[in-house]
């Protein structure tokens, strides 16, 4: 029987844990014990499997059958049907955009087929708490290879030739950065991993840290060897306690195995890694601010130059790379620069990990080759926009990025093409927006974020963004004047030109890019006092259609402010003076009688 070789993988990524993974695991283990299978079937908690909206996900190997939305109840079926009787539980099968995924066809499915997993190669496959599983998937072989067969120069040459560019947002060539840091003369050097992941709608780095922490440690150690460093820091945001826990455990194991510490693998190279925890400041993702924070200071940016490669932590040359950038290093060392450079486009090599979210059917973590079109990403992998709504725009790059309108769906995803459209590759947040999204409100949302997060060191960023936000508030509340749109453009340009760090220099992007593509929507707010997407509260009203209302009283009962009047079986009415536009009534009306109108 196949029983003896079964392994059950259960996703313990952030979304699946939130969806009840722990209780599923508990019941699963109880059931296995009940049938005395606990000795032969292994249960392994993995990192994010990438289909977070369908979690918790459970996969049975070696068959490779994936189950979705598993709960403490139906998990019993997996044991009783699949494990005991060898029968796949049809109704729980994982469903991708093109239907259910059954045995074997897994690899053929567009959701998987269009993805190329390099940085996320181990996610959802290994137990992140167990170093042996990482080793079984070629883990630490790259470190062994570099320490025993390569000179630091050769390592740098390989990274340069691979064409890898920074995945933290700016896309600076990684090999070149390593070389610059190596060439800075000093008796002490540091390696820093930027795991601050500030984009407020993205969780790629978190998934890698939680699902495959050793890959980051291995790559940092390789980097340490290449630049001539002795010590590394991973700077993780405080909001990621699980990532911190798994990293701590990984560091401990790596030390025990001799992959970290004195005289690694018997060579004369010594290197160790420590964790530093952030404290909730977006600007600390900026490299100089981050280093100030590691030193225990206020996390404000410094003027560059000097760059970290020359003067970083405590004044010593410091190499700083993003989590995903590091995660690409071990495969590059093992498979070679040419292999990596064969994937992607002319200027953007390899893959990019995206956190797909918003108004898209399949949300989660995806890794795609550079050059894939947005259409393939959103439709073939993402399954398109749910509820028959129309795609309006795609936001990349978070608060530093921009919105790409639906007309540009055939744009390839690479650093240059996205930049040309006024957006950026960013760190990998990708938010899909449908027709119900108001682009002026989106701009306001991001501006509110930058106003909250500006460190206050320079005036254009601190005061300018506030002024822009005020104007946007004016426009969305129906008080906008025609010259406001021009003022936004002017102010935006001033902030870009005169801010000290990347936060200020990119803060106006969400406004400028929406102005570029959705100016008519701004104008509708200003001139006609209409919010076409019916989002801006001051410009909309909730109304009940007397022809459709049957007087069921459902709306009146949920209205938190008693704005709805009407007796049973009589037509109801909303008082716009009292109504707070909370939207609850629309959701409960089963007769579709309530709608939003603007103005």
């Amino acid at each position, binding site marked *: 029987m196949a029983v003896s070789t079964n392994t059950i993988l259960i996703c313990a990524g952030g*979304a699946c844990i939130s969806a009840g993974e722990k209780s599923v695991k508990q019941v699963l283990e109880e059931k296995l014990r009940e049938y005395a299978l606990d000795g032969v079937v292994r249960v392994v908690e993995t990192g994010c499997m990438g289909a*977070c909206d369908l979690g918790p996900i459970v996969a049975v190997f070696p068959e490779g059958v994936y189950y979705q939305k598993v709960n403490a109840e139906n998990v019993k079926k997996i044991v009783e049907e699949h494990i005991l009787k060898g029968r796949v539980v049809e109704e729980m099968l994982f469903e991708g955009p093109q239907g259910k995924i059954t045995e074997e066809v897994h690899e053929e499915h567009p959701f998987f087929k269009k993805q190329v997993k390099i940085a996320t190669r181990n996610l959802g496959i290994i137990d992140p708490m167990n170093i042996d599983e990482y080793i079984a998937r070629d883990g630490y072989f790259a470190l062994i290879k570099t320490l025993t067969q390569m000179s630091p120069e050769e390592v740098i040459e390989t990274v340069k030739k691979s064409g890898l560019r920074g995945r933290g947002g700016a896309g600076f060539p990684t090999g070149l950065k390593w070389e610059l840091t190596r060439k800075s003369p000093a008796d002490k050097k540091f390696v820093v991993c930027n795991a601050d992941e500030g*984009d407020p709608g*993205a969780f790629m780095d978190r998934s890698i840290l939680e699902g495959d922490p050793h890959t980051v440690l291995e790559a940092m150690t390789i980097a340490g060897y290449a630049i001539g460093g002795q010590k590394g820091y991973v700077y993780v945001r405080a909001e990621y306690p699980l990532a911190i826990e798994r990293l701590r455990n990984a560091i401990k194991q790596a030390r025990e195995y001799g992959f970290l510490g004195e005289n690694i693998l018997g060579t004369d190279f010594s290197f160790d890694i420590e964790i530093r*925890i952030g404290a909730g400041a977006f600007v600390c993702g900026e490299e100089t601010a981050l280093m100030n924070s590691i*030193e*225990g200071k206020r996390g404000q940016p410094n003027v560059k130059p000097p760059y970290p490669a020359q003067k970083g932590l405590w004044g010593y040359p410091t190499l700083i790379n993003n989590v995903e950038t590091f995660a690409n290093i071990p495969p590059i060392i093992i498979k070679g620069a040419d292999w990596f450079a064969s994937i992607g486009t002319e200027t953007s090599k390899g893959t990019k990990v995206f956190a797909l*979210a918003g108004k898209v059917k399949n949300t989660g973590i995806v890794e795609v080759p550079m050059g894939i079109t947005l259409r393939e990403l959103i439709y073939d992998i993402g399954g398109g926009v749910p509820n028959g709504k129309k795609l309006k725009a795609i936001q990349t790059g978070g608060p530093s990025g921009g919105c790409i309108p639906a007309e540009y769906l055939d744009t390839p995803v690479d650093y240059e093409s996205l930049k040309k459209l006024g957006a950026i590759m960013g760190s990998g947040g990708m938010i899909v927006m449908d027709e119900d999204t108001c682009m002026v409100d989106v701009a306001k949302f991001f501006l509110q974020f930058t106003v909250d997060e500006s460190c206050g060191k320079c005036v254009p960023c601190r005061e300018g963004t506030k002024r822009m936000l005020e104007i946007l508030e004016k426009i969305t509340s129906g008080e906008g004047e025609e010259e406001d749109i021009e003022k936004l453009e002017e102010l935006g340009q001033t902030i870009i030109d005169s801010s000290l760090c990347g936060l200020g220099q990119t803060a106006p992007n969400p406004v400028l890019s929406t102005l570029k593509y959705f100016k008519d929507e701004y104008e509708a707010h200003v001139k006609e006092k209409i919010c076409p997407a019916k989002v801006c509260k001051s410009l909309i009203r909730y109304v009940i259609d007397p022809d459709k209302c049957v007087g069921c009283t459902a709306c009146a009962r949920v209205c*938190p402010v008693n704005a709805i009047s009407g007796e049973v079986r009589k037509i109801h009415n909303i008082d716009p003076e009292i109504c707070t536009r*909370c939207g609850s009534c629309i959701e409960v009306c089963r007769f579709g009688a309530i709608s939003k109108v603007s103005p």
Partner: protein
Amino acid sequence: MEKSICEQHEKLYAELDKFIEEIHADGSALIEVLHKAQQLFGHLPVEVQEYIAEKLNIPVSKVFGVVTFYSFFTMKPRGKHQIKVCLGTACYVKGADRLMDRFKEELGVEEDGVTKDGLFSLHGVRCLGACSMAPVVMIGENDFYGRVTPDEVPKIIRNYTK
């Protein structure tokens, strides 16, 4: 000052001392020490900041500067149950602002406010890493609510008032 701190506080200070010793903390470990202190005391009142400054041998002004810079640190006590409404992009696109409004209304507090009975405080946070379940709300460290609609808010609050 020493005498006025009650017994319970003394225990907390002792634990903080232990932590500082364990990690051989100096000035550069200030943020870690503050994390620990906030975990122990719930917030970071001036006395605690002064204590840490003395322990790490750095000026109080530096400690204060760091505490006020990072949004994670608070000098005000928070509610027994901290309600964290995600205001990240994915949640925003799925209507998180309406959720926040409803919480404000039901609790009668503004963002970062504490209810009179001290039971709840309300906070807007950025991406909880579960964007697939947007909009999401987290209460305390462990209770997680996904795909929340505004009219579920009263029910959620009631889970903690009983």
